[in-house]
Structures are given as structure tokens and as C-alpha cells.
């Protein structure tokens, strides 16, 4: 019985920092990026969803990603490194955001 209880206790412990990678969504609608997700960690995936009838991009200012988004399309970026990544649409430079990847 004791080993079983010990096993349960392990299961009930808080998730360690090295939890499985997660997926976050950033939507583009009416010429704007939606608010960026909080708590993005290295290894997580960002899915960019373009709901506009216009072609957009999600382009990191430091060159670490550059995703082309035709009208009504979606694409993924896996965030490998920690840091604050300022991004914009290279076709509509007023569309901007900052993605923070932490531990």
C-alpha cells in the first residue's frame, strides 16, 4: 500500500518546469495581432492564424522567424530560445507585437 501512496503523491506534485511543450495561438484579424500569450516557454509552438483577406507576415525584428501568412491561412513557429521577440507584419509595419519566452 505504501508504494502506491508514494506513487500518488508523485502524481499530485506540481508540474516540473520541464513540462511538455505547449501550443499557443496568435490571431490576426482586422489588421491587428491579438494579444500575445503569456507564459510561453522554450520548445512551445506558436500558431499564427490569419483571418484577414490580406496577406500578412509574422516577422521577428531580430530575424529569428519570418512566417508568411496568405489570406485565411495558418502557420507555426517553434520558439527555441528564451527572450523578448519583437515582431511585425512586413507588409503592414503598423502591425506589431512582442512575444516573451521565459523559463
Amino acid at each position, binding site marked *: 500500500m505504501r508504494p502506491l501512496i508514494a506513487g500518488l503523491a508523485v502524481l499530485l506534485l506540481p508540474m516540473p518546469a520541464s513540462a511538455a511543450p505547449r501550443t499557443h495561438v496568435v490571431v490576426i484579424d*482586422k489588421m491587428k495581432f491579438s494579444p500575445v500569450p503569456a507564459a510561453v516557454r522554450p520548445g512551445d509552438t506558436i500558431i499564427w492564424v490569419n483571418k484577414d*483577406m*490580406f*496577406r500578412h507576415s509574422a516577422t521577428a525584428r531580430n530575424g529569428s522567424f519570418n512566417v508568411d501568412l496568405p*489570406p485565411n491561412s495558418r502557420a507555426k513557429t517553434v520558439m527555441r530560445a528564451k527572450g523578448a521577440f519583437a515582431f511585425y507584419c512586413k*507588409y503592414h*509595419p*503598423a502591425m506589431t507585437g512582442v512575444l516573451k519566452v521565459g523559463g
Partner: protein
Amino acid sequence: MTRRARLLAAATLAALGAAPLIAAAGPSDAEIAHIAYTAGALDAAAAKQALTKSRNAEVRAFAEVMLRDHEAVNDKALALVKKLKVTPADNATSQALARQAKETEAKLAALDGAAFDRAYAANEAAFHRTVNGALKDTLIPSADNAELKGLLETGLTLFGQHQAHAEHLESSLK
């Protein structure tokens, strides 16, 4: 164009941009659709001229965006008028826009290199300012059909960014 006709066209555009008081008696949906489509088609034509003449990478990138975005809006506009069974109606404002664009095209055709790039950027900033003013003050308030109004509002959001982009391009080329 005669001086009188030019003045008339300028007056029409000015009235269009500053006519919220007469919005109730403003253009019909068929006229609004025609004005919006004409403005988009004229800007796409200006972009094609720029892509033929300019060798500046920034100017060309801007023109490509103009061509793509305006064609996308106009494709939607065509689909919408078909769905609503509205026949876009030609009108004095569309004609004034077309006349002015024809003059600009001729003026730009005579320019080359940096002079062309500067004139194209300045005209794009001015053209978007005029059309955005008309959308905001006259066309959107006058539109009866909700879908047409929605498309015009999407257009205004887009063209507002085009205007800022054109103004930025214009100042970077000075």
C-alpha cells in the same frame, strides 16, 4: 482638362471629404460601391506603373502591397455587389477620382529614378488621405447595407495603414 473642370473635380473631392451634414442625402449604395471600387482600381493601376518604372526596393515592396491589398478588397467588393444584386453606378465623384488619377499618371510617366519615387510616394500619401477622409465622413455614414458598410470599414482600417506607410515612405525618400 480645362482649368474649370479641374476646379470642379477638386471641389467635388473637397465636398466629398467634408460633407457629413449632407450624409442623409449622400451617395446611394450603388454609387458608394462604384466610388470605392474605382479608388481601389486606380491605386492598383498606380502600383503597376510604379512596378514598371521604379528600381527602388522599398518603393517596389510598397507598390506590391498596394496592388495585392487593393485587388483583395476589390475582389470582395465585386463578390458583394453580385450577392446583393447591386449594379455599381458611375457618378461625378468616381469620374473626378479617375480624371485626377489620369493626370497624376501622366505627370509620373514623365519622371524617372528618385524623382519618380518621391512623386509616387507623395501621391500615394495624398490619395489615401483623400479617400480615407471620404470613407470616414461620407461613404461609411451613407452606406445603408450592413455588409457594404462592414467592407468599407475594413477598407478604412487597411487604407489608414497604407496612408501611414506611404507617409513614412515619402519622408524616407526626401
